[in-house]
């Protein structure tokens, strides 16, 4: 008993130390974003800001045309649209496909699945130039729609993989009952499989949102104006332009990180339950 007690104390201590170490860099960025510039460049560094300095956030939220703020806000709006569009399309398309992989018997099933997964091995760089020319011919360069289309090709193999692994774990008997009741395959999918696949669906939603929000290379090459430029491109431009003003980059970075961080924290329990299935059968 005494041993167990000591172990438990050790575990909690380790968790506190590790947790602090993990969050420290992010906390530094938060502090930098609300510290006056004079604090940030002082030596020795002033860790706790002398005053709460919110000018950078104010500039980002209210800055007029041609300011850092307006560029950031349009990039934020673009990213919201591109990410939600990509997630919506990827989820619908992958749910249908994953059902086929998990439940139906057809020729070349394994091969088709492998080909989808193999696309993950392709470096984006290998597709950039022809994609650029194709998008330009279709007048989709520097548009959000163009970005959604290319992002979907990155996200769908992932969602397909997560979802088909999860669908496999749902007992087939549940569905057979629905089929006997005359539901049809599609009825069974929407009335039986989807409701019992919630952890898998949430995991897939979270992964696809994070992937789409994080996408950088396509956005870097295929967007050029505020009409479609996304946050990752905007932040990398800030970081290149305002090298001396780390506070501003930090403020922008935190706002850009907020949506995925909130979503990941809310859905974190589905990472394991959604992936536990994935680990069983690759």
């Amino acid at each position: 008993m005494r041993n167990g007690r000591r172990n438990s104390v050790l575990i909690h201590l380790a968790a506190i130390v590790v947790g602090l170490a993990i969050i420290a860099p992010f906390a530094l960025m938060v502090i930098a974003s609300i510290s006056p510039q004079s604090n940030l460049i002082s030596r020795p560094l002033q860790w706790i800001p002398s005053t709460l300095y919110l000018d950078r956030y104010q500039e980002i939220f209210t800055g007029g045309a041609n300011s850092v703020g307006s560029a950031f806000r349009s990039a934020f709006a673009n990213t919201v649209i591109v990410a939600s569009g990509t997630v919506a399309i990827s989820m619908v398309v992958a749910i249908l496909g994953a059902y086929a992989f998990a439940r139906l018997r057809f020729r070349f099933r394994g091969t088709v699945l492998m080909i989808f997964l193999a696309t993950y091995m392709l470096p984006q760089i290998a597709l950039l130039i022809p994609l650029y020319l194709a998008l330009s011919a279709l007048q989709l360069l520097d548009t959000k729609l163009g970005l959604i289309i290319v992002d979907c090709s990155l996200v769908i193999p992932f969602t397909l993989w997560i979802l088909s692994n999860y669908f496999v774990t749902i007992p087939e008997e549940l569905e057979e009952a629905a089929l006997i009741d005359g539901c049809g395959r599609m009825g069974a999918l929407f009335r039986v499989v989807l409701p019992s696949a919630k952890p898998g669906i949430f995991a897939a939603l979270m992964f696809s949102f994070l992937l789409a929000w994080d996408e950088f290379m396509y956005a870097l090459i295929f967007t050029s104006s505020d009409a479609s430029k996304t946050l990752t491109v905007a932040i990398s431009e800030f970081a290149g332009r305002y090298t001396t003003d780390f506070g501003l980059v930090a403020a922008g970075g935190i706002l850009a990180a907020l949506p995925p961080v909130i979503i990941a924290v809310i859905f974190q329990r589905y990472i394991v339950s959604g992936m536990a299935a994935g680990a069983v059968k690759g």
Partner: protein
Amino acid sequence: MSTVTNTPVPDVAAPPVGKRRRRLENHGKLAFWLLLPAAVAVFGVIVYPILRTLLISFFQVDSVLAVDTPFVGLGNYASALASPGFWASMGRTLYFTLTSTALELVLGLGLAALLNAPMKFRWLFRAVVVVPWAVPTIVNAAMWKGIFNAEYGAFNAVLLQLGLIDHYQAWLGDPFTSLNMVIVADVWKTTPLVAFFLLAGLTSIPKELYEAARLDRAGWPRMFRSIVLPLLVPSISIVVVLRTVEAFKVFDIIYGMTRGGPANGTQTIAYYTYVTAFSDQNYGVGSALSYLIVMVILILSTIYLRVLRRSGMSLV
């Protein structure tokens, strides 16, 4: 139950041959329609560029609008393989891959064990652990670039105030040091995902195994070696394959932190390809390089899967 056996439902165990064939056929048709949208969305985007890039890799193309593009056969591949820049960036990629994957696995395993341990406020700990993974790569890169800054970076401040250094250092100023700093940034962001992946494997280990081992008076090191590690092999191997592929494609974090510098010290193979194709406008060689990356990834994945299969840990 009895109602089911009485109704004339086709016997699942032994369906008549004709009926079975028709069911298979039906499945094929339904599967085709269900998979069509995904196939169009994925292959509609990538098939043309893959073939086009393969084609370009056989020609000398010096600009997007080049008119005079002579056929050079495997010349682009030969000149890519002959350039010292290629081998140097390959070496850096290998170093990046081995170091970051090893660190992420070791730290991830420890973190997974901690995530799995009984504790109060476990949800809070898990929420903290998930944060780095959710931070976008470009934000992560900008963050670490600020932390390692030579003039005002917090890393310098910590080391100086602890008395470990006597003046500020340019952590991103030396080629090899900056490659290691990029690895630090990558490890910070990726270890949580690796840990959650291993945690998924850990939770699937039956509790009885630990209890049996405890009855046999096995200590922790022994339990780890005989139970945890063997049963985690599938999860670990997936992590290794995925991380290797990622490392060979790594681009954003390098673009965000160092742009491949200083003195090309952080130029990995994907970044080298990007520079060759876009900065040097050498599309032919750039295309050949991207196919070389694909080949290396294919070879490595095949070797991994072969080894896995031989060790009886096959997944596919």
